[in-house]
């Protein structure tokens, strides 16, 4: 980022002494160290031998032990390859579900006029702050009554809500975005004979791509990191996603699993970290424009 754009109050004032700027930089670097230390420590520990995990308090291993990754990968009866595939499946389908269903609902709210729209919109805003934990017990009962928990398609209880636009946040984000698309485009399409579906297909859908990308990225990261719902709805080891599988390491409290556990923890964060590197600017802007939290 360039100088002038980010220094409003200081910019027009007389230059402060150089020492102050140095002090600020030192403080900022110290905070960076505190913020990043746990991450480096995690990576360091993931390649330490069992003995070093107890004895070597440093960040780097004396005896580089990449074998932890292989041990962790095959630590349980089901390999981590399966858990990663499961997590990827759930996360990607969630992305599709959120993108499609929230886009449809947002188009209705932002552009179409129908009876009770104001009421439904108020209800949607109301569900924004509804804590998910409140609904977990009755949702579990319902999905279980329908035979969907631990059934042939174990991920349906996780995915069905995502295909029904229950993530109100994304609906809201897209409504806000669509309100910025000029209405003249709708009118032009209408004059060309397009109805509500045509306008959606040829005007709104192509122009909503930025909002769709933001939705996709956050859906993926949140679902990949999500634990609560996956813990509740998944019961078979072979259906486990990565976060649920990681907790198995805690169950097997034996000290010998610490290295492998850290190795898998590192791997589990790689996709999120990849998204962070690729879309850093977008993620930060995303929480700015929409007030959303990671």
């Amino acid at each position, binding site marked *: 980022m360039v100088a002038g754009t*980010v220094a409003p109050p200081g910019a027009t004032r007389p230059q402060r002494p150089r020492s102050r700027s140095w002090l600020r930089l030192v403080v900022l670097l110290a905070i960076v160290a505190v913020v990043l230390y746990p991450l480096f420590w995690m990576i360091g520990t993931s390649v330490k031998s069992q003995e070093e995990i107890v004895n070597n308090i440093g960040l780097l291993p004396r005896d580089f032990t990449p074998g932890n990754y292989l041990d962790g990968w095959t630590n349980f009866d089901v390999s981590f390859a399966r858990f990663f595939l499961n997590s990827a499946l759930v996360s990607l389908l969630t992305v599709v579900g959120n993108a499609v269903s929230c886009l449809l609902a947002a188009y209705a709210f932002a552009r179409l006029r129908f009876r009770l729209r104001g009421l439904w919109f108020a209800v949607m805003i109301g569900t924004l702050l509804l804590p998910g934990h409140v609904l977990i017990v009755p949702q579990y009962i319902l999905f279980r009554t329908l035979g969907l928990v631990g059934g042939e398609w174990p991920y349906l209880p996780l995915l069905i809500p995502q295909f029904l636009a229950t993530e109100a946040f994304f609906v809201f984000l897209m409504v806000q975005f669509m309100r910025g698309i000029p209405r003249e485009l709708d009118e032009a399409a209408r004059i060309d004979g397009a109805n509500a579906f045509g306008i959606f297909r040829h005007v709104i859908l192509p122009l909503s791509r930025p909002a769709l990308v933001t939705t996709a990225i956050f859906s993926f990261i949140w679902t990949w990191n999500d634990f609560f719902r996956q813990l509740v709805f998944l019961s078979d080891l072979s259906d486990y996603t990565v976060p*649920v599988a990681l907790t198995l390491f805690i169950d097997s409290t034996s000290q010998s699993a610490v290295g492998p556990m850290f190795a898998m923890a590192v791997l589990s964060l790689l996709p999120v970290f990849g998204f962070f590197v690729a879309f850093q600017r977008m993620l930060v802007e995303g929480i700015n424009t929409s007030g959303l939290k990671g």
Partner: protein
Amino acid sequence: MALTTAPDPTRRGTGSVRPDANRRGTGRIRHGEGLAGYVFLSPWLIGLMGITALPMLLSLYLSFTDYDILTPLSEVEWVGLANYERMFTGDPSWWHSVRVTLSFALIAVPLKLAAALGVALLLNRAWRGVGLFRGLFYLPSLLGGSVALAIVWVNMFNREGAFNSFLALFGIQGKPWVNDPDWALETLMVLAIWQFGAPMVIFLAGLKQVPTELYEAASVDGAGRFRQFVNVTLPMLSPVIFFNLVLETINGFQGFTAAFVLSNGTGGPVDSTLMYTLNLYITGFTDLEMGYASAMAWVFLIAIAIITVVFFSTGRFWVHYSDGEDR
């Protein structure tokens, strides 16, 4: 993960949350558009009914029963207010979980916001590398809610963890903090504070909106930097502070993952990390007392609603909206 959402307070002039507010009341619904509206809305409507409303009603009903998952729904016994009575008068661990959750939110949220604001102020005045710092500070907010990071945290504050080796540099003998009932919850607070990046980004956006003239005027009047902060920055930033406070508090009440990982799903040591949502999970899915868990969920929902209302009604007295934006 708890996600929280709201319109952006740092953007002025887009205040209305009604859809299409400027076009409201323009009369008739174009032919066929009403139907199309409901076609596009139908997935959301089905979700609202089936995934949100129906479960809420079911949960309200179950909260007056002794339902466990093993007996069929048709045979549950109506117990009236017994669950609520038990919660308030006969269940010390419920009260304990309320205390744990409140102390977590009351300590961690202000400290997290203070850290976020402090770092935002440092970054706001810096002139170089802001984008890089901002990104690095935001990273924990992306990773921090995961099981993986919770595992790292627990080990970091264990006997052989990094924190104790840090203390050893100063000759201080550490202890296994996560196994100590007096300290386990504090380690989770530190984890929450470590994720100060998300509110920080929002503070930074708010700081950019403060007009430079105000600082110049204050400076002409002889105000030092501290006075400028108290009399200019804080009032101008109060809508953003309010926004962060509401969201972080509601988030704080819902902390689950880290407490689960630290205690292996028990809320230990000695119930010191028995967050409300963890207690709810244990009651419903370990003890299978789903009727009682439903009552707990409803009390939680009502408590969150009350807290939100309290925030918004007290906000009028300290949240300052500039240029006639008071509503």
